[in-house]
């Protein structure tokens, strides 16, 4: 029965490929990416059916390729067809690498070729994936437009549409009947299976069956997939699949599941016994099962980690070493103004450094073992003004309040009045002297919150008249006539979504819906550069803590690292499956974290451009990120109203803070990292005891190795305070150098 079906099917495959590719007929890129697609379908069809049909398919494909003069691909295909299972790696990977050339450096550690081969080898059902874990990575990492047709053609394999619900039900019954310890793990299979079965039905024009299937089983899925299910449900026709981003995500990236070996064996045995090829194929084709040895995980453990668009992060992905330590502070001679100051500074210095370094007994300026090399990435040299600022910083730090559960910070709230729902982004300078706001009407406004007014530098003609030798030349270049409390910067042509001051307060960055990032001078209050590269809205941008570099991310799913003096990006970080919604620099400037609408956080190495961490667990788009001042931890907030805490070094979730009821737009650690402040759309600021949160986590070797963390049940103990505003969503938080918390938002009467 199955064989007959498959036979028909293969013919269809052939037809599909032919028609679609000819229809598309758009040059080289298509062809190069069509080769993995077509071969994969060939490889797959090989598995259950006999080889007769298979040969025919291959021949047809070959003919087609020849007709299109794609000799390289023909070669590959020939070779593969001849060698099938034990294919020769090297030439294939080379050519495939060439095929996907032009893709910027991605966190993909294996090439497409590898994935191809492993698919072929895995397709023989005997090969236990555990012994040869296929190194499959999102095939299309950085490609802007993966060829939809090829991607879709994998769905052409088909069974009787009426049987789909039966298959699914059968699996459901089986999973319900297994032992409790396995049930939670195996239940993870439901969602990806459901999605792919639905898509197959839709692709094969079984609209009604698809709808019925959806109605019948969509209720079983975990609630945090609701958003995706909604998108899925609107897709009921084959034509819709073309160009639908979500669909592409499902297809181009394998859904990653973590299952213990025991559970996996159980599932495999069941499917083989039942001859349930339909489901088995989907699992082989579209899922990546990350098998680990040891105890199956509990339901809560799984729930904590799942929820992202493409399943959990693979364990491999988080193995790379991350140098999370801080860079050594440059030695700066603190001028000794008077006796008191001196005494304070002597005490103040070690105090300030203390939280920053892990093993800090003496004043020795030893390199932190976890810190990257000082020169790992080139950093701008310190200017005199920077040194002055650092001295100021240290002086302020001596007056810093030690925060703790018994010593909560005061909060000063800056309300934007008459903003008419138009405030989209806010930033404070590190010394808290300036506030910038981005608005939906494309303007950027800068306010001075100190008595010092904002002044523009005089025009060139006036500047030439100035006595350059005078002591107060810096004062003289300023035009007193332009002094005002706020300045408006015009230049963008769409809402401004991200805004960031440079650490030296000379520049301001803004990113906008118009696809540009603009650099503004705060001396002249004019636009200096417009960085073009994102063609779609840029959701966020941020300066490096050392200046010079900055990061931007937006709707095009690619984060870009720029240097202010280059008009093209230095690095492009591709890998997210949906919009990049927020970007943050690690305090040591060597890493960049990006949060995305695919509900994952990725950490990228600025030096290599590799993705070094994939953190999953959020159930909604991530809208805020914050690193702890010592660089060891990270906090993230999402639309689901939860704050998650991460250990950057181990790549582990170490805490979950529940309490907010709406999107969290602002997160900030206090200067010493004892307190985390979170601000949300629900008009509250909440303070959390992070010291306790990080202390509570017990990290033994096993959890560190597997990443299966037991989260403390009640995050309410960590909540130190809740402060309601008067219908003012909190969209930015900032700790001053003395640990006063500043918050900002627009009053919505």
């Amino acid at each position, binding site marked *: 029965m199955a064989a007959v079906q498959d036979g028909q099917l293969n013919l269809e495959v052939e037809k599909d490929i032919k028609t679609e590719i000819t229809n598309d007929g758009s040059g080289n890129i298509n062809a190069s990416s069509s080769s993995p697609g077509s071969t994969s379908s060939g490889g797959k069809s090989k598995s259950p059916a006999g080889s007769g049909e298979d040969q025919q398919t291959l021949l047809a494909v070959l003919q087609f390729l020849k007709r299109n003069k794609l000799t390289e691909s023909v070669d590959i295909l020939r070779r593969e067809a001849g060698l099938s299972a034990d294919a020769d790696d090297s030439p294939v990977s080379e050519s495939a690498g060439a095929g996907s050339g032009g893709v910027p450096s991605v966190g993909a550690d294996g090439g497409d070729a590898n994935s191809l081969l492993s698919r072929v080898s895995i397709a023989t059902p005997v090969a236990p994936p555990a012994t040869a874990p296929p190194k499959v990575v999102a095939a299309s990492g950085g490609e802007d437009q993966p060829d939809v047709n090829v991607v879709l053609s994998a769905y052409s394999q088909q069974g009787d549409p009426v049987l789909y619900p039966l298959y699914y039900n059968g699996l459901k019954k089986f999973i319900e009947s297994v032992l409790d310890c396995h049930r939670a793990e195996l239940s993870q299979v439901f969602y990806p299976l459901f999605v792919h079965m639905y898509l197959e039905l839709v692709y094969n024009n079984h609209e009604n069956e698809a709808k019925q299937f959806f109605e019948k089983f969509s209720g079983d899925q975990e609630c945090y997939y609701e958003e995706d299910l909604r998108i899925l449900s609107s897709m009921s026709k084959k034509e819709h699949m073309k160009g639908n981003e979500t669909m592409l995500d499902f297809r181009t990236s394998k859904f990653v599941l973590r299952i213990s070996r025991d559970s996996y064996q159980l599932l495999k045995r069941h499917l083989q016994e039942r001859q349930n090829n339909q489901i088995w194929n989907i699992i082989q084709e579209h899922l990546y099962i990350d098998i680990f040895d040891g105890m199956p995980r509990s339901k809560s453990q799984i729930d904590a980690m799942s929820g992202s668009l493409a399943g959990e992060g693979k364990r491999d992905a988080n193995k790379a070493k991350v140098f999370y330590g801080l860079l050594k502070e440059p030695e700066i001679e603190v001028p000794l103004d008077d006796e008191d100051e001196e005494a304070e500074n002597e005490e103040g210095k070690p105090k300030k450094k203390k939280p920053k370094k892990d093993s800090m007994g003496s004043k020795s300026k030893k390199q932190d073992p976890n810190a990257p090399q000082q020169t790992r990435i080139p950093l701008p040299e310190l200017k005199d003004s920077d040194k002055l600022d650092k001295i100021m910083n240290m002086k302020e730090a001596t007056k810093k309040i030690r925060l703790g559960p018994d010593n909560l910070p*005061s909060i000063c*709230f800056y309300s934007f009045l*008459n903003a008419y729902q138009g405030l989209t982004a806010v930033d404070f300078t590190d010394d808290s002297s300036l506030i910038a706001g981005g608005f939906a009407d494309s303007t950027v406004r800068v306010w001075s919150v100190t008595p010092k007014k904002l002044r523009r530098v005089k025009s060139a003609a006036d500047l030439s008249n100035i006595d350059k030798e005078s002591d107060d030349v810096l004062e003289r270049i300023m035009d007193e006539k332009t002094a005002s409390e706020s300045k408006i910067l015009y230049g963008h042509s769409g809402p401004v979504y991200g805004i960031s001051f440079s650490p030296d307060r000379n520049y301001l960055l803004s990113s906008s819906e118009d696809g540009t990032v603009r650099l503004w001078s705060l001396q002249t209050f004019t636009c200096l550069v417009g960085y073009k590269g994102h063609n779609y*809205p840029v959701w966020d941008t941020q300066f490096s803590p050392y200046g010079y570099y900055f990061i931007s991310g937006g709707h095009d799913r690619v984060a870009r690292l720029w240097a202010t003096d280059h008009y093209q990006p230095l690095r492009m970080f591709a890998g997210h499956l949906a919009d990049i919604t927020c970007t943050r620099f690690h305090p040591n400037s060597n890493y960049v974290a990006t949060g995305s609408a695919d509900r994952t956080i990725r950490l990228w190495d600025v030096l290599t451009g590799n993705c070094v961490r994939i953190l999953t667990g959020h159930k909604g788009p991530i809208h805020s990120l914050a690193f702890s001042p010592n660089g060891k931890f990270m906090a993230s907030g999402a639309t689901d109203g939860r704050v998650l805490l991460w250990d950057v070094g181990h790549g582990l979730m170490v805490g979950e803070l529940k309490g907010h009821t709406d999107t969290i737009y602002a997160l900030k650690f206090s200067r010493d990292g004892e307190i985390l402040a979170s601000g949300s759309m629900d008009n509250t600021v909440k303070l959390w005891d992070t010291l306790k949160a990080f202390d509570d986590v017990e990290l033994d070797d096993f959890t560190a190795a597997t990443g299966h963390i037991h989260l403390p049940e009640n995050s309410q103990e960590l909540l130190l*305070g809740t402060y309601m505003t008067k219908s003012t969503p909190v969209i930015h938080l900032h700790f001053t150098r003395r640990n006063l918390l500043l918050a900002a938002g627009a009053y919505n009467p």
Partner: protein
Amino acid sequence: MSDMSATMAEERRPKQCTVVLPTESMKAMAESIGVGQLQEESCAALSEEVSYRIKEIAQDALKFMHHGKRRKLTTSDIDHALKLKNVEPLYGFQSQEFIPFRFASGGGRELHFYEEKEVDLSDIINTPLPRVPLDVSLKAHWLSIEGVQPAIPENPPPAPKEQQKAESTEPLKVVKPGQEEEGSIQKGQGAISAEAKGKKEGLMRMKPRSTHELSVEQQLYYKEITEACVGSCEAKRAEALQSIATDPGLYQMLPRFSTFISEGVRVNVVQNNLALLIYLMRMVKALMDNPTLYLEKYLHELIPAVVTCIVSKQLCLRPDVDNHWALRDFAARLMAQSCKTFSTTTNNIQSRITKTFTKSWLDEKTQWTTRYGCIAGLSELGPDVIKTLILPRLTVEGARIKAVSEGPVVSNIDKIGADHVQSLLLKHCASVIAKTRPLPDNMEQYRADYGYLGPTLCSHVVKARAQAALQAQQVNRTTLTITQPRPTLTVSQSGIGGSGGSRSPSIIKVPSSLTLMSTRPGTPTQPSPPATKYIVMATSAGASSTQQVITLSSSSGSSVTSTVASATSTLQPLVKLESRGAGGLGGSRPLQKYIVVSLPTSASSSLESKSGMLPPSSSSTSPISLEAGMKMDRSDSPGASTQSPH
């Protein structure tokens, strides 16, 4: 458009699969662009496709909403989403709070559409430009000081009303929302719940002893406020009352305020200090106006105080001249308001109050002052109460009034009292009768039904009906609205022509925005009540002088828009009131002048009103100042009384 997609994006899961635009819409849209016969299949195909695309756009638009940090989807979000898809945005739509979709049906079809009116460009050019919206500004305040949220207007009220209620009704379950776990910050305000927690752990479940400790600042505030409220400076008082009516953080001081008022009334009734009683009632009013206070707990103190001010036999030292009637009216209105807000099936405030009033009214020995108070209290409770309790007693009451006014001269006080009761009855009953009694209005019939008061009542009813008819006709009148920063208006006389009787000054509520109606070019032949117009000039030391013209009944003859200057110059001010810190209110009071000019249409009525007006004029300044700074909510002229009082 935006609304439509927004709702779609908000669709919950159960309906997900099925949400598709109806095929009829496709047909209608096709017709609107000139495609006539659209096949049913193509309609179905189109509708599915269109639904899918709309959903897709809505999903993208939601992204823009989230990044715009808003909760509301706007049309610009849709535009940006379209731009993402490389589609030309829809121009000309702008976000409004409310997009009125209209519904139409016909030919078996139903349509929802957005009415786009044709706009005449010349109209737009000629209309004056609207005010430029205020620019964005930045304002800082303390959200928290070392973990404690200060009770300032910029912060939400520390204890929302529900919580105050919970505290008073279920003291054992007091839970501060969102704060129950944060033991550390419950220094001041959390003392109660912390204590409750402690008690809970013990075996005894006792009602926690709530300590209403006031901080130094709060004590200072309390002192300042109470002093200002009963002090002599009117400006300060207005400020203090404003603070009581709006400040969100007062609930801790509420018990003190309540005691202050109740004790104050007790003392001042005995001393017949009318002014202080008025100030205290204004405090009650301010407390009731404050939306953040949960007053239920203190009604047992406030209601007796208010009722005292309504029905007390004597409220002032010279009952023959002082205008204590205004206080009674005002307190009666307060009473009615509290009945409306606080009466429940368990406390039965309204029925208990009604019983109290009726009982003392029915008592033969009751004095005219108390009688007036009872009637005022009852009639403020609404037309239903008037109908069931007052109308049946009109005959009896009429006889009593007749005995006083036509009988042998008793005391002057009784006569004034009877007069007031009469006008009060006429005022309230006329409007109710006008609404309930069928035409025609026969003088004799009225006499038969209502006794002595019948004929006058009849003429009042006729006037009320005419007024109602007039108002119904005045659809296209031009309205001029003067908005003032603070309602400071007062008129203390309403002469009623024809009736012969004139009412002594009573407080007339004026809405904060005065409406001056320039009467439409009407027919002078139409019977209409003579209009009385007042120009009130209040000159006080601090504030700039204000002049206002109010018509209390619309006149058909002259229009009020005549300039104020000419009005004052051509006509002699008939009444002039001047106050120089009357009574025991202290001499430090800034000079405040009230010039009330009555501009009658006919000379006869003016004379009458003059004669009725003069006696109390010498000392009736307190009611005028009483109303200053008070929030008014209805106009209360006899002419406009066809509008039901509540």
